[in-house]
């Protein structure tokens, strides 16, 4: 076989992975599995080897298993140089070097960016630094919050009733801790699943003893003289005594370190093509920089080729595998990343799963089961086709609806099913909040057609 540039890369190349979490690890493992023999560097800003995040808001808060015990299982040895506890601080695309916060620079032939997202902090920095105010994204966050819950707080306030906030509230109730949830929208989960399902989620909260307050904002957090949080103030003029506050306002993409690099990176993520190759700010695809996981936004054929950002565990794995494959492939051997969005949550004893992009849906039909029984399947429709589905304790049917989404099947579904109830005879408005109002709920974000976040001025060539 001819000694191509690709062979050379595989044998002696330098690959750098920025981001040492799920996507970074699975990407690195796939590189080795595909025969990459060169040097591999893993850069991560946290001091820990890759760990799994979903348990941090579930088992770890219940004292079943610890936040420290969530190390990701390894598929294989990746023989990498680990640079943990030091963040990437910049990128020189021309020189092909990643700059590190400690001043070091790491050269690469191929770069995989999987820097993910971080918890959106409380906007008032001083209030956010009060003792007892937490966010939940990292293992350190999980350890700290679990310890505080162990100590038996009098009342926890969760700000934001998205999936993470709802799971935290659920864990509190399971432990018998009093909890208030404050949500700007009219119900929990509305950003991701709409108002019809949000109403079910609200009932779940209240039945389980959560003091759920919707249509309300937290305007200020108040500390005592020792700097511990003691109360929160709401937009309706009321206030609440609380000794733990969990700020659960969604995530921000970790792209700050790429500012000024020329890569198509911004608050909405790093734009890449279906083959995981990053775009530069001019909308031109790079050939040596690949993106995977929560930080990526890529065009999806099932959703009109809009750029899709997915904060989903399965997406991170799948996209990292595709990126790694493509990093070591000739252009004709590359594969597209066309994962159908899927996620799960577990709260108040109910398993919630979803496929597709419910938040694109304008209508919903409860095709199976009953909302009152908390066991049902809801199918989302958009412009006459099935675009998403959600199940509450009904996940064995989800595969069928995924196929419906993939086949762009008609909505409302024209066929009868088992377990069809009177409430499932016709579609309802899905009741998503106005997309122009910022929410922290959705874990799928459609972010338009432009690969680059910055506006470019188009200047026609002169004649």
């Amino acid at each position, binding site marked *: 076989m001819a000694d191509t540039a690709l062979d050379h890369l595989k044998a002696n190349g330098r690959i750098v992975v920025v981001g040492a979490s799920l996507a970074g690890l699975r990407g690195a493992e796939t590189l080795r599995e595909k025969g990459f023999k060169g040097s591999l560097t893993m850069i991560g800003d946290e001091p820990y080897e890759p760990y799994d995040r979903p348990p941090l808001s579930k088992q770890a808060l219940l004292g079943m298993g610890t936040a420290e015990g969530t190390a990701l299982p390894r598929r294989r040895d990746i023989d990498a140089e680990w640079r943990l506890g030091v963040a990437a601080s910049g990128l020189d695309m021309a020189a092909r070097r990643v700059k590190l916060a400690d001043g070091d620079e790491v050269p690469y032939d191929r770069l995989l960016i999987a820097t993910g997202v971080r918890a959106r902090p409380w906007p008032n920095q001083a209030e956010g630094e009060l003792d007892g105010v937490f966010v939940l994204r990292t293992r350190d966050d999980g350890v700290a919050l679990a310890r505080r819950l162990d100590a038996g707080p009098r009342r926890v306030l969760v700000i934001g009733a998205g999936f993470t906030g709802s799971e935290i509230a659920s864990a509190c109730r399971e432990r018998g801790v009093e909890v208030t949830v404050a949500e700007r929208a009219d119900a929990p989960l509305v950003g991701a699943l709409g108002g019809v399902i949000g109403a079910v989620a609200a009932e779940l909260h209240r039945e389980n003893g959560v003091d759920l307050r919707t249509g309300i904002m937290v305007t200020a957090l108040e500390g005592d003289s020792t700097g511990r949080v003691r109360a929160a103030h709401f937009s309706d003029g009321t206030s609440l005594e609380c000794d733990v506050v969990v700020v659960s306002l969604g995530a921000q993409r970790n792209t700050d370190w790429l500012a000024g690099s020329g890569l198509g990176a911004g608050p909405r993520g790093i734009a890449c093509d279906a083959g995981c190759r990053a775009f530069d700010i001019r909308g031109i695809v790079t050939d040596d920089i690949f993106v995977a996981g929560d930080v990526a936004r890529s065009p999806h054929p099932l959703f009109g080729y809009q750029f899709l950002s997915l904060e989903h565990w399965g997406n991170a794995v799948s996209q990292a595998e595709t990126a790694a494959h493509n990093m070591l492939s000739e252009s004709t051997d590359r594969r597209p990343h066309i994962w159908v969005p899927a996620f799960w949550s577990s709260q108040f004893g109910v398993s919630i799963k979803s496929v597709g992009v419910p938040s694109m849906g304008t209508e919903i039909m409860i095709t199976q089961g009953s909302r009152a029984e908390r*066991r049902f399947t809801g199918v989302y429709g958009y412009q006459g086709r099935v675009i998403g589905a959600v199940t509450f304790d009904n996940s064995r049917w989800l595969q*069928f609806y995924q196929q419906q989404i993939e086949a762009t099947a008609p909505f409302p579904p024209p*066929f009868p099913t*088992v377990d069809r109830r009177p409430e499932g005879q016709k579609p309802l408005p899905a009741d998503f909040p106005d997309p122009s109002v910022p929410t922290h709920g959705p874990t799928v974000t459609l972010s338009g057609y432009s690969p680059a976040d910055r506006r470019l001025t188009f200047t026609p060539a002169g004649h």
Partner: protein
Amino acid sequence: MKQGILSDILDYSNRANPYPLYAELRKTPVFHDGDGPYVISTYHHIQSLLHDPRLSSEARNLAAGAGDPLAGAEDEGASALPPSFLKLDPPEHDRLRRMTNRPFGPPDSPHRVDDMRGFLHTTVTGLIDNLGDPERIDLVDQFAYPFPVTMICRLLGVPREDEARFHVWADTLAASLDPDPGADPKEREKTTHDARMELGMYLAGLIEERRKNPGEDMLSQLAVGHGQDETMSTMELLSTAALLLIAGHETTVNLITNGMLTLLRNPDVLRQLRETPALAVPLVEELLRFEPPVQLLPQRTPLADIEVGGVTIPKGSSMWLILASGNRDPDRFENPDRFDPYRKDIQHLGLGSGIHSCFGAPLARLEAQLALTELTRRLENPRLVEDPPPYRQNAVLRGPRHLRITCDGVRPS
């Protein structure tokens, strides 16, 4: 009504090896002839259909006269017992299965199956100790049948002295699942009906007794409820208990027997299992693919006209899903006719899939793993006396009636 390849599959003379017929059938992934059932034989179609909410498992949704040679086998007993959750759709299916699961599996009873390990092991050891003349062993009668029967009776709380009566009822009801060309249908209906009646009467007495003196067994716990908001009616409890008993009687016996038969046909694998008992776990999965105890699911019907592989299957049609054929589909499994316990990609259909997937799967797996490990470890140089062995009549719950083997001796436990 049975034509061509379907009648060949049901024909007893092909019982020992139906797999070439399945391969033939897969050339027409949705097979339909005359007024017979729609027969689905390829992996991906079966897998999809098992998760398809347009399919019903309830006999009442079958159109009158939908050509199913297996239909009516159990419905006739409807006057004796209502349908079990195997033959119900949600929400009734879900409700009954959920309640049945409470004393059996997680989250309410996460240790039930694991806690049976000791008793399983003692039972296996005792049965092997008593095999008698090592040159004349019938593995079915002496081991593969009594083992799971002892287990299911123990689990449900059926007194051991009643097992012989169960044997007769379970055999009759399992046979009713099978289209026996020779039998007089009227006669068979009556036999089946009587067996369900007698089983129901017996169980009713037992449940009555357990309600007064509840024990640790499942029947007691189902009878007294778990203090939850929903409980089973007595009739539902009878149907459920009958289902568990028959399923416990008639499936694992085939899994174990098929397993030993397959191991004796693959002496290399048998040796590897003896050397590495941990191989039993993937080996049983491969066995569920290679020789599944339930060959086909004959009781699905679409609630609307549906399209499968370009064929429209009309509402109310009878459908058969040939699990054993899907398991040998070369579009899904490499070298599907090779028994390979090291196979990595092993998402078989042997225990079904979707809401009706095998309820007793954790127990069946554990029983088969333990049985094959211990037989392999203790039988010295086991050989088949005849190959193929004689099979049961049943094409659905397919397995040898006898498995005569000989060996040089039985090692002490």
